[in-house]
């Protein structure tokens, strides 16, 4: 039974349930690369071009680790995953970036859901192509597998929307709530973000991310801007930040960005200005890359948490 390899990087952190459900339903075995380590990052950094962003460098590391362990590498060309938005140019060229690095066959269906009109036709086409590449001709089986994958994905979203983190086992009431915005592959990869979520939880705060909120809600709020954003994750982060400060859902916002991220350089600027203009929430921009050191990172976080606590104390009349 051939083995499908899925690098544990980039949109693995959002769509793995879908992919896993699809492949296992067809009877294939799915392997992923190991969680990110310093070694993964080092190897990625040595192979990627210097100018590229940190997540892509991490992706290279996962790709190289994985390609010896599987028969097919699954690397969809994710052009667009929702109408009227792209992800980022690098996702559109992703299979091309690593084509020269391996002799292993790459499964690279194009997923382009940019147009509302043929959304399902495109999605079906991508599933069919993937199945056909592996020698499955029965449309019924592929359809079944796609449905199974979509169901798994739905379950994943539902579990995320339940915002109380299952890892937070302390029975204490949280001291407050901190919103962390960023791409899924920075927020949910602890090696990339220096275990930020755990750090905040240990400090007694509940953490929410844009992925804890329904996508339609975030998109609707993001589209209130004068011009509709054309990046999926740009919409999510702007939508989440505005939702949080408009409805006073959090005590502070952390914008977690990776060095060299093109879309964040634009959306981050807009978010920072909006937050400053329209609210008085504490806001922290944290940039991570392969050189980020723990000391500087945690010092800034501690200062940020102190600021939130001072504000709460002043509001509560303790000072």
């Amino acid at each position: 039974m051939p083995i499908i390899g899925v690098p544990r990087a980039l949109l693995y952190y959002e769509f793995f349930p879908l992919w896993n459900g699809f492949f296992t339903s067809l009877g294939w075995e799915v392997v992923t690369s190991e969680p990110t380590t310093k070694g993964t990052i080092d190897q990625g950094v040595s192979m990627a071009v210097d100018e590229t962003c940190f997540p892509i460098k991490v992706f290279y590391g996962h790709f190289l680790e994985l390609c010896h362990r599987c028969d097919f590498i699954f690397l969809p060309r994710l052009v667009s995953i929702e109408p009227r938005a792209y992800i980022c140019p690098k996702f559109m060229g992703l299979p091309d970036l690593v084509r020269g690095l391996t002799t292993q066959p790459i499964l690279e269906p194009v997923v382009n859901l940019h147009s509302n009109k043929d959304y399902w036709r495109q999605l079906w086409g991508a599933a069919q192509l993937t199945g056909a590449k592996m020698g499955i001709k029965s449309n019924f089986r592929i359809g079944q597998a796609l449905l199974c994958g979509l169901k798994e994905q739905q379950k994943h979203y539902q579990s995320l929307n339940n915002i109380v983190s299952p890892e937070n086992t302390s029975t204490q009431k949280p001291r407050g709530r901190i919103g962390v915005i960023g791409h899924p592959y920075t927020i949910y990869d602890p090696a990339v973000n220096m275990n930020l979520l755990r750090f905040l939880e240990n400090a007694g705060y509940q953490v929410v991310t844009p992925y804890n909120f329904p996508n339609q809600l975030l998109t609707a709020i993001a589209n209130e801007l004068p011009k509709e954003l054309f990046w999926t994750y740009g919409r999510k982060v702007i939508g989440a930040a505005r939702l949080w400060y408009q409805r006073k859902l959090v005590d502070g916002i952390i914008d977690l960005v990776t060095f060299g991220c093109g879309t964040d350089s634009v959306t981050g600027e807009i978010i920072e200005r909006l937050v400053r203009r329209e609210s008085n929430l504490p806001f922290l921009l944290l940039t991570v890359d392969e050189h980020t050191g723990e000391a500087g990172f945690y010092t800034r976080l501690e200062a940020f948490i102190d600021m939130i606590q001072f504000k709460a104390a002043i509001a509560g009349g303790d000072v």
Partner: protein
Amino acid sequence: MKVTYPHMGTINIVLNALLRELNLEIVPPPPTSKKTLELGTAHGPEFACLPLKITLGNFLEALEQGAEILIMAGGCGPCRFGYYAQVQREILTDLGHNSTMLILEPPQTGWIDFLGKLRWLLGGLPVRAFQRGWTLGMAKARAIDCVEEELERTRPVEALSGVGNAEFNRFLNQLDQATTLAETAKLTKTYQSLLRQLQEGRRASIKVGVVGEIYTVLEPFSNQDLLQRLGALGVEVQRKLRLSHWISEHLTLNSRKRRQFRQEITALAKPYLQYFVGGHGLESVAHSIQLCQEGASGIIQVAPLTCMPEIVAETVLPQVSKDIGKPILTLFVDEQTAPAGLQTRLEAFLDLLPLNDISQHSS
């Protein structure tokens, strides 16, 4: 009301032609300078690409001179350029400027909105005047491209270095004043033959193709006068990215021609890059192949640092280089780029070219 626009190479001449025809008072931003860049860097987002910062600086300088309406191009992604105007407007708002931004979105998204704004600006829609201005502007863009191509042949072989450039600047000044199509055509002819005389029948022995992101190719300030430097080093620059191409590609509706053009590019880039990646990423790959087929000895790719489409192109270009047997140099520019470093890299690259050609021939 006083209108202004950002600089991008010689686009000011094209815009002047259009705006004058519409009877608008123009306050052009002062020529892009170190001060422009400093202003843009100080107020712009740190990790944004260079064109955003420079054009922001242009706007700030123009506002100082009394401009009230800022004209800027838009886009619908995935390249960041499409959102420049939005970020710049937020920045200018926070700095306390009450200016209006008139954003030229490409036809897919916002023509109706654009026409509405234009109507508000002009108090009506003078279709004939717009058409006249557009025709003249496009004619001027093509004129600039023709003469500049001649200039790029002249620079490496002119007897006295800098003469060609001086003539070209004189041409630009006169072209800006021209009010009719006939005048434009005449100026083009005159200066083309003038530059050809300066060549005295010589042709540079080394040709280098320039590809990359359009702004950094067209705007000499952003690339430290790369094209002029190459000329001074005795290299004939060849490129497909020119002003008139960009305008017609972005702002016209001639979709049949555009589709044909795109098909050609897509087919050439296919073995290396199978999907469009925004900006000029696909073009960078396709043009590298095209220019080498047409006789270039090497390719220089130039782009702003963190440019997403060009990073994708940069990643696949080594394979292109291997397959066509010509070296490719990638130059990323930002506000830190200094002339000395650039010059050194260019000289080293050019030193290698003849050696590469010899080894190609002997093998």
